[in-house]
């Protein structure tokens, strides 16, 4: 085959430009640490990379949600703990009232102490976290969730206990305000019924805490019993035998608080494990992302060096490209 001058030059230019392209790609890889810098360089990996990025972004969000929940539950646990302590105090006072020989004035002093404790307990149960009520169910910023108010038009003043505006005697088990929920997505594949907006329980975490779950409804209500204790002590005819029953009721009500506290401990644990699970998942995803999106830097530098060497060799060839022709030897 004839090899004319133009073929030699064209071949050389072509090879040199190919080499330069490859060198450029290697340089990019070393500089960015990335295996590819656009989808078309590796379409299959690019799609996987996008899915991993999405999962990572979601996990980040889930982790944030769990962190917020943990803080809220810590606050709630502390508050319930304090409530429980107050309950012990109430029992002590009332025990003293029942067992000692006290006169009417002393009963009044007990009553005053219990009143103080009751108000503290109501304040505690209406406590806020990050500006939102802790124990109001879905009520986070309206009127105080748990209130002790005067019944309108009653004389002498009669008091009623309300939860989210409803008298605790009017709330039946299963009433909407005992089941309202605030579901938080913590990465359990949350399912929403698109026509009703209902979130399938078990696919998300219900973070709604309701005061009445811990205080009880109707006659079982902790504050209601406490009110009765105070009324009995103030009445002037306090009779340990007759009113001893109240202590038993109160102890039962206290149990509900402690049960709630235990349940909350379980929830806090669950959140902790969830957080750990999310972190594990995140670690795995980052490892996969590394493998898919990023180059091993040693390999990248090695191939850069190799490519550099090839390119230099090609450049050196350039000086030998135009060999003398027969003309140079004619005399």
């Amino acid at each position, binding site marked *: *085959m*004839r*090899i*004319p*001058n*133009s*073929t030699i030059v*064209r071949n050389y230019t*072509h090879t040199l430009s190919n080499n330069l392209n490859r060198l450029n790609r290697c340089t990019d890889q070393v500089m960015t640490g*990335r295996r*590819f*810098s*656009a*989808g*078309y360089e590796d*379409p299959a990996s*690019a*799609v996987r*990379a*996008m*899915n991993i*990025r*999405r999962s990572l*972004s*979601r996990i*980040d*969000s889930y982790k*944030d*949600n769990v962190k*917020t929940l943990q803080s809220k539950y810590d606050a709630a646990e502390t508050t319930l703990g304090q409530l429980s302590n107050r309950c012990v105090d109430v029992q002590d006072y009332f025990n003293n009232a029942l067992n000692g020989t006290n006169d009417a004035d002393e009963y009044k002093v007990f009553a005053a102490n219990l009143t103080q404790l009751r108000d503290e307990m109501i304040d505690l149960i209406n406590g806020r976290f990050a500006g*939102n009520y802790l124990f*109001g*169910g*879905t*009520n*986070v*910023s*309206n009127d105080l969730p748990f209130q002790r108010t005067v019944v309108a038009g009653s004389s002498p003043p009669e008091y009623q206990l309300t939860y*989210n*505006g409803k008298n605790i005697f009017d709330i039946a088990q299963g009433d*909407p*305000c005992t089941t*309202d929920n*605030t*579901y*938080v*997505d913590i990465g359990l594949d*949350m*399912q*929403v019924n*698109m*026509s*009703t*907006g209902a*979130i399938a329980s078990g696919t998300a975490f219900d*973070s709604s805490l309701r005061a009445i779950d811990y205080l009880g409804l109707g006659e079982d209500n902790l504050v209601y019993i406490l009110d009765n204790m105070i009324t009995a002590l103030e009445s002037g005819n306090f009779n340990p035998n007759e009113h001893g029953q109240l202590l038993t009721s109160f102890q039962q009500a206290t149990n509900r608080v402690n049960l709630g506290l235990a349940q909350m401990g379980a929830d806090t644990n669950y959140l902790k494990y969830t957080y750990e699970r999310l972190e594990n998942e995140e670690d795995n995803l980052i490892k996969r992302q590394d493998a898919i999106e990023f180059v091993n830097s040693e390999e990248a530098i090695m191939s850069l060096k190799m490519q550099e060497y090839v390119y230099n060799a090609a450049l050196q060839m350039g000086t030998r490209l135009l060999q003398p*022709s*027969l*003309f140079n030897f*004619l005399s």
Partner: protein
Amino acid sequence: MLRPTFLSFETAKKALSASQYGLDTVGHNISNVNTPGYTRQRVDQVSISPTGYRSKFQIHGSQGPGMGSEVQGISQVRDPFLDNRYRTEAANYGELSIKSNALMDLVSVFDEIMKDGLWSQFGELINALDKFKDNVTSEDMATVVRNYARQLTQVMNKNASELETILKQQYSDLSVSVGDINSIVEQVARLNELIMEDHFYGVPSNELMDQRNLLLDQLSEYLDITVEYTSTTVGDRKVQQCNVYINGLWDSPLISSGSYNQLKLEPSIGDGGSQSLNDWVSNADGCVSLSLIDGVSGLAVKGVSDLTPLFETGQLGGALGGYVQVINGDGIYSSDGSSFRGVAYYRKALDELAVQFAQVMNGLNTPSYDNHINSCTENIARLTEMINAETALASPDNEAVAQWEQERMEYLEKLNGFLPIDDFSLADTPGFDWDNIATAGSGALLIQNGQAQEVVQTLDNDGEIVSLLLGATDLAPELAQGRRYLFVGAGNDPSVITAKTITISEEWVKDAFWMTTNLSPTVDGGEDSNHGDNIARFYYALNSQSYSFANGFSGTCQEFLVGMQSDLSLDKQLNNTLADASFNVISGIIKQRDAVSAVSTDEEAINMIIYQNYYNAAARYMTVLDEALGTIIQGMGVVGR
């Protein structure tokens, strides 16, 4: 047998002249070693037979030696087969490299491997909704969600304008190419005339043919062409004629000897006529059309409908085919669903995403409207069923009838709550004869002025009410009035959404809480309850809910975008591979062509030495003849003097 005395001088002279031609040609070749399109030339030398060979008065048996050599002409060393191969492959490569450039532009719009784009914006919005869902009373969160929604629409707008810029660029490149093609075609036709003329007078015209071949090579990058050489008789001489066809258009040659056609480019919308460029670019149906017109008269030779589809379907390649496919190619949205995924495809896909997204979000933001639709549909179905059941009651069973009536009343009242009915009365008005309703059609439910009226509801694919006819009255507009739109198109109009114009509604701009946060009534009756079940729907709709798109894709909005990017990546990768392969083929052909036609300096040096020696030899021959003749003239007959 007689030998003419001076015949050999003629032979020697011819030899001298032939070697000089040889040297001249070597000089010409060396001079043009770097001239683009130059084909090496060689001297066409033939030997001359002895005088009188086959002549009338030839003396038999007197054949002497030949009369030396003659230069018949200077010709090119060129292989037309390689030219054809080159031109076929050049068209292929031209098409691929245009597509490759356009795909690269599209990659820079949509690819999110190195930068954040629409896909990331969806992610941000989803994360913001997730937070908002758990804290629907917070104005901060509401504002954050609104900002992300606005950013998302802005990125969408930006992508849509980038696509328009690409389209404008492609169109301008295409019109430059068409101009170039037309100019080349005209030049080739002129050269055809000149070459024919030269051939007629016996001039080899090598340089003009080089020029023509170079122009045809250029043309072949733009168009799939076939070059055909025929011989034709002019006067009493045969001359070569060159015709050029666009492949497949055999009945109307692009160039036929000296006459030619020209390509005409027009922007059009759909199948309509030409449009102003700005209108054209902003219309999603904008495409280009090509027709063939006579080069002189400008009359149509091949219409738009004949020519354009050939380019659109990729039947005709070349850079021109590449441009048309890039501009017109709407992939799955085309009538046969298989055209190239060009700018048109991505514009339509983006528009579809914008409309789908807006529809979902707007629908979710007016849950009562959804309820309207569901309840209307449900109640109408139930009532119809009951009416049919009642008319089917064989014997009047008072108890059963009473039960039906009561249940029917309940349903009618429910329906009454949803339908804005003022001038309609419920069918159960006292004294109304239920038996009559059967005659008014199975859907008849309500009466107007004592007449039973049929309720006919028409929904579109997205579950939106198109019309709700009560007799002759359409209640749909009235129903739509209570809708709360989050996303709108130009002029705050929710019915004209495109990717270019989508934006958040004026109402949302004014009120961060324009998003409906609660679907079911709140438990405590408070307006700022943290129930947030409707935000959960928004969140779920974007995060997990699958939607069916017209391009056959089914998935979330984010998955739609990943799918789009993946399509683009695969197209680009495939195109790159094909372009590389085509480039290699072309390189091979060029190498082969060079091997035949290009100048090699070594070879020329050898030729030069040969011709020089040839010249020396011829000169020596002349000297010998001279001396021989001198012997006769000066040396003979001296003895008798």
